[in-house]
C-alpha cells in the first residue's frame, strides 16, 4: 500500500515537536515588535538548549571578539536572526528519537546536514548572501528523511536496504516503495512547523535548483549538499556524490583556488560544529 500525501500530513501532529519556545521564535520571524527580552528569558529556562546555543555562538565560525554568556548577549552581538537560527540548530539536532529504523544512521544524517550547513554558510559569504539563512537551510534541507523514518520506520528501513542493495537513487527508491519522497515530506513538515517561505523553497527545490522560481538559496544548498557528500564528511560507507547542476555550479562562479578554500573552511567549521551539536 502506498502512502498518500493526506496520510502523511494527518500524522504530522504525532511527530516529535520542537520545544514550545522554538516554535514561538519561528513564528516571530516577521514580527517587528517581537519582545526579544521575553523570548530570551524563555529560551534561558531550557538549560541544555541555552548551553548548546551559547557554545555555537562562541565558536570561531561566528567570530565574536567577546565570549557571550547569556542568550540576551548573543542577541545583542549576533543579532536576533542569527541567534534564532542557532537556537533552531541546537534544538533540532536533539529532537528526533533514534533507533527504530536499523538501516537509518541518524549520526551520519546529522553529520551530513551539519556539513551542508557549514558549506552553505561559507558559500553564502562568497556570494554576499545572508549567511545565517544559508546555514539554517543547509541544516534542514533533508529533514523530510526524519519524517519518513519517524512515521514509517519499518517501511523506510526496507527503502534504505533496497537502496543500498541496488546502489539506487534514494528519491526514486522512496517513490517506488513508499509512494512519496523525502522532499515532499520535508515540505509538509516545513509548513507544519511554520518555517519561512525562503526555507520552505530551499527544502522543496534543493534537488532541482534549475526549476523556475527555485530561488538562489536552493542553488547554494544544492551545491553545498554535493560538496558535503564529496568531502565524505557523513562517515557513511555507501556514500555517493549526487548529480551536480551545471546551472547552479556556474551561478556560484568560483575559481578552483576559491573552491579549495571553501573545502578547507567547510571541514574546519564542520569539526567544530559537530563537536557542539552532536555532543
Amino acid at each position: 500500500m502506498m502512502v498518500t500525501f493526506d496520510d502523511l500530513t494527518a500524522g504530522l501532529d504525532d511527530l516529535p515537536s520542537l520545544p514550545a519556545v522554538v516554535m514561538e521564535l519561528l513564528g516571530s520571524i516577521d514580527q517587528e515588535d517581537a519582545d526579544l527580552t521575553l523570548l530570551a528569558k524563555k529560551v534561558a529556562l531550557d538549560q541544555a538548549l541555552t548551553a548548546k546555543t551559547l557554545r555555537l555562538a562562541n565558536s570561531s565560525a561566528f567570530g565574536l571578539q567577546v565570549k557571550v554568556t547569556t542568550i540576551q548577549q548573543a542577541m545583542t552581538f549576533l543579532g536576533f536572526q542569527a541567534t534564532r537560527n542557532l537556537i533552531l540548530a541546537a534544538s533540532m539536532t536533539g529532537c528526533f528519537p533514534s533507533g527504530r529504523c536499523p538501516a537509518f544512521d541518524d549520526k551520519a544524517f546529522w553529520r551530513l546536514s551539519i556539513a551542508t550547513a557549514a558549506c552553505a554558510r561559507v558559500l553564502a559569504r562568497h556570494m554576499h548572501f545572508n549567511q545565517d539563512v544559508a546555514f539554517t537551510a543547509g541544516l534542514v534541507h533533508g529533514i523530510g528523511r526524519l519524517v519518513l523514518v519517524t512515521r514509517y520506520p519499518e517501511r523506510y528501513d526496507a527503502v534504505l536496504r533496497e537502496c543500498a542493495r541496488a546502489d539506487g537513487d534514494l528519491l526514486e527508491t522512496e517513490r517506488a516503495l513508499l509512494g512519496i519522497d523525502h522532499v515532499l515530506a520535508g515540505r509538509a513538515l516545513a509548513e507544519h512547523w511554520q518555517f519561512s517561505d525562503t526555507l520552505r523553497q530551499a527544502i522543496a527545490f534543493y534537488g532541482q535548483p534549475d526549476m523556475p522560481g527555485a530561488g538562489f538559496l536552493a542553488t547554494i544548498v544544492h551545491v553545498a549538499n554535493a560538496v558535503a557528500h564529496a568531502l565524505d564528511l557523513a562517515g557513511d560507507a555507501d556514500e555517493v556524490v549526487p548529480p551536480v547542476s551545471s546551472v547552479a555550479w556556474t551561478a556560484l562562479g568560483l575559481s578552483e583556488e576559491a573552491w579549495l578554500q571553501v573545502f578547507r573552511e567547510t571541514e574546519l567549521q564542520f569539526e567544530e560544529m559537530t563537536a557542539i551539536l552532536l555532543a
Partner: protein
Amino acid sequence: MSNDHELVPVTKALPGMVLSDELLDSHGLVLLAKGAVLSEAIIASLGRHQIDMVPVARVEAHRAPDGAAVQARLDFLFRRHARDGDSDSDWAGHLLRRYVEDYRLERQVAP
C-alpha cells in the same frame, strides 16, 4: 620548525585555525595568546597590525596522503560521475571531482 605547526600568510589564514604560538605586535606586546582560535574579525585585525604570517597548528599530523587509497575512495564516491562518460551533461560533477581530488591529494594548484 617542528611538524605540528606551520607559518601561513595572513591572506591564507582561515577561521577555525588555532595559533601554535603567541603573536606579538611590532612593539613586542602580546596580541593573541597561544591556542587562540582565529576568526574572521581576528584575521582582519592582523592585517591592521601589519602582520604578514601567522603560526598555526597543523590540522592533524600532516602526513602525506596515501594516494592510492584516497584515489580509490574518491573513485567510489564519484561512481555516478564517470571520468570518461559523456562529459557534456555532467561537466559540473567532473569539475567538483577534479577539485576534490586536487584537494585530497594535495596537488599544487596554480593561483
